[in-house]
């Protein structure tokens, strides 16, 4: 069941096309990473989904409710953590969460329990009596997250939840998000890619307002190629490699310190098979010493750069 469904969503700010016919959907229980370079339209899309602003055209449904016609139900089913985590600085953490719980109409018999639960869950119990204004960035982020969670929404929309945190806090936040993914649907925007690889099951890459790519992370990571550096005559080696069974293509690539006859190749294989054993066997048979031979899975980083840069080149052309 699709918890978030976006259809041909478009948003103009004046003449600026911020979001350009975006389509995607997020299923129940998924953690989806929403990636893109700065200014790609991530925050705008999220704000449209939270009903804070409305789209120029297209429609979207959150938890089955239309974001325009049933905006209140949408907001009832959604926890949102904005990027800058704006909070009332003059309130105490506890007071703030109680106020938010009241505002989000958490049943009064559950309210106290819910607030205690999110305080514990987001690890802000030690600062519960402090003024929000005196907290550090990391703690404010957690208070914001606690606020997003307090009415137990089925969907969480988190805009860069780890920006501005130190590495340990980032890790902690990611662990928390992964835990939350067990019973919430999470849409998470960021441009820190290792984070996405760690927690997300699926990624949506948005670039210049358009969806550049969306797929399961496991699919994306299946793509792999073999990197080889060998001391051999380049033509012969290439010829040899092309005739190994299962090799689809061989691309010569420049090597660092290649002066002494070392040449490098990227080898693509059919069905992403791991042919390292076969290759080394053949090369050794020839008596060519191997300097490097490894299997490189395509990282999200490569993909991201490829997708966004590719688009940029296409635009330039």
């Amino acid at each position, binding site marked *: 069941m699709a918890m978030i469904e976006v259809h041909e969503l478009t948003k103009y700010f004046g003449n600026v096309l911020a979001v350009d016919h975006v389509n995607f959907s997020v299923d129940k229980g998924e953690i989806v990473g929403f990636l893109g370079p700065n200014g790609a339209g991530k925050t705008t899309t999220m*704000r449209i989904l*939270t*009903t*804070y*602003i*409305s789209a120029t055209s297209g429609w979207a449904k959150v938890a089955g409710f239309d974001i325009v016609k049933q905006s*209140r*139900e949408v*907001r*009832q089913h*959604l926890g*949102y953590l*904005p990027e*800058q985590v*704006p*909070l*009332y*600085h*003059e*309130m105490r953490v506890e007071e703030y969460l*109680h*106020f*938010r719980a*009241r*505002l*989000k*109409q958490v049943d*009064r*018999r559950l*309210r*106290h*329990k819910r607030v205690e639960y999110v305080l514990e869950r987001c*690890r802000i119990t*030690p*600062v519960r009596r*402090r003024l929000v204004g005196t*907290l*550090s960035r*990391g*703690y404010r982020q957690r208070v914001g997250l606690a*606020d997003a969670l307090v009415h137990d929404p089925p969907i969480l929309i988190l805009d860069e939840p780890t920006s501005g945190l*130190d590495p*340990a*806090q980032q890790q*902690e936040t990611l662990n928390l998000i992964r835990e939350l993914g067990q019973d919430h649907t999470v849409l998470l925007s960021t441009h820190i890619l290792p984070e996405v690889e760690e927690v997300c099951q699926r990624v949506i890459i948005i670039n210049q307002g358009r969806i550049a790519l969306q797929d399961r992370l496991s699919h994306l990571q299946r793509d792999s190629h073999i990197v080889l550096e060998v001391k051999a005559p380049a033509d012969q080696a290439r010829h040899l490699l092309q005739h190994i069974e299962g090799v689809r293509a061989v691309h010569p690539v420049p090597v660092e310190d290649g002066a002494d006859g070392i040449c490098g190749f990227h080898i693509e294989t059919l069905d992403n098979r791991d042919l390292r054993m076969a290759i080394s066997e053949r090369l050794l048979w020839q008596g060519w010493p191997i300097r490097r031979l490894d299997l490189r899975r395509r990282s999200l980083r490569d993909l991201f750069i490829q997708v966004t840069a590719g688009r940029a080149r296409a635009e330039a052309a």
Partner: protein
Amino acid sequence: MSKLATKQSETSLAEEAYGPSRIEERPPELARSVGFFGLCLLAISIVMLAWNAIRQAIGGDQSRLPFFNNTWITFCSLTGVALMYYHAAVDRAVEIRRTYSVLAWLAVGTGGLGLGFWAIYHWWGTTLAILISVIAGFIAVSVATCPWVLSAARNFSEPASAENLAEEASPLLSTASAPIPITWLRGLAQFLRQWNSLIGTDVAVTRITFGSVAWVALTIIVAALLTARIGWKPMPGASLIALLVGLAFVLTVAKHEWHEAWRNTGAYLLASVGYGAFALSLAYVVRDLMVTTDAGIFTPAGFIAGILSLVFFLAHINLAGSDADSSYYSAMLCLVAGSVLLALLGLARSLLAPLAFHISDTWRPSPYFLTNGLLVLILAILQLTTGLVTVSNNQLVAIFRRELLAYFYTPTAYLVLAGLAIIAGIQYLTWIAILRTAAGDLTRQEVVFQEPVVQFYFYGLFPVFALLAIPPFLTMRLFSEEKRTGTLEVLLVAPVSDVTVVLGKFLGAWAFFLVAWGLWFVFPLIFRFLLGQPFEYLPLLSFYVGTAFLVTSFIGLGVFFSAITDNQVIAAVLSYAGVLALFVPQLMHWQFTWAGRGTGEWLAQAVQQIAVLEQYRSFLDGQLYLQHLLYHLSIAAFFLFLTVRVLESRKWK
């Protein structure tokens, strides 16, 4: 840091390393010196008092020994208490705050008993029976509904391990971390348990009986002792001061108190005092109902008691804090139910006079509504709204509460209140001076002066200036600050409609203005009750209601201008311009008057109707015209509607 960290296991080590910065309990040396100095001053004033008493006892009035002036004693004691209050507010060490809280509770208890006794002493006959029964009833209810009491045995049998870490680090901490009252209460709880098993009744019933009997017995014994033995003249003023000072200390010290049991005990006791005060005011109304020959004695003691009860309930909520606590709800429900009862009683008594003609030929109770009945109703409405607003889960009320409290989170509230108090004080002195010159001498009872005399108090530069200047100051931050910090996004993404947000903010600013504006009305009350000068006070009521409506337009347009910018200064400037624009008809009216154009012309008449100061004046004369109220209400409604549109414009901009 390292000492703590080495104790932790590996997982919590990371937690500790990335935990919040620790609060170190560093002894506040300065505050302690200040507190000690305050204590010395207090001691000096007590010594001076004692010396005066000894001198009186030895030589009588003709003694030639030197004596201390009362002004000095007052000055020393007041300064001493103020300095100690500062110390209590700053020092968090466990012994110090416990000492202060015990002392404060003693003050509250003494003050409460003193006041209670004073009430009984003055109207011994009729009041006593009612009072005792009502107090007993309310104490019974409060004891029964307070879950803390029901679970006291469990709470106190647990070791005091919940003590905060910071307390352990306290430099003054000795082994006596288990406070004495707790062991005492534990003993009591165990005794009650045994008693229950002995006679086989419900736990609650036993506690109610014991609690109420103990309280009533205490009051009677103290009252009897004071009158019969010592011949002590009851001092309501001193009792009231003790009560309020004690309350201030209790609330301040309680901010440092992490220990649940202490907080709960405090909250429970405060609620009990609140019930007591409430019972007192109820008793006065009941007495008024029975004694129909005089004009009633509700004023002012009953009113003060009622206000006190409200203060204590609010203090209880402040201390009890969490709204999941059912004692909080029961307290509020009692307040609401009580206020409804109060209102009904007041109405019933007010209706007695007109009904008397139908009931009997000879029986003629004095008319009641205009003085006492009205006060009873105002009190009831105050309590009812406070109760409902505190307990409600409505979103509008949630936003309203936050906005109202936001003034008190920042210095705004205190600045406005202090400023208003000062200029109201100046205006009051001016007023007295005017009255004095007009009447020749204040001490003469027959003051020949044209009523309503309050117009000389309110129709002046200061009050008009306050009325025009304060609303923009209150409204400027409502939306602009939220826009600047971005909290507006969070607020609007909560499942709440724009209309609710706008109305909540408007009502919050309005309610704060009403409270601040109410300060102006305290001084005439002083004039009436402390100086004993009767005057026509009814225009005060119409004036308050009228001005309350009058500012709705100012606040409404302030809310609007705050919503269109994210700069508070711009919002304030625009709002002042708006207020000025609303003032323009008044200028035109003056022009017309000077030009000598009569009121016959329709334009002059229309302008006079919407001239702010003319309306102000008619409120002061006791005239509330519906068109004046509707004029301001409709302006407010128009601007609030625009504000909602401005908020919505984020969607299509």
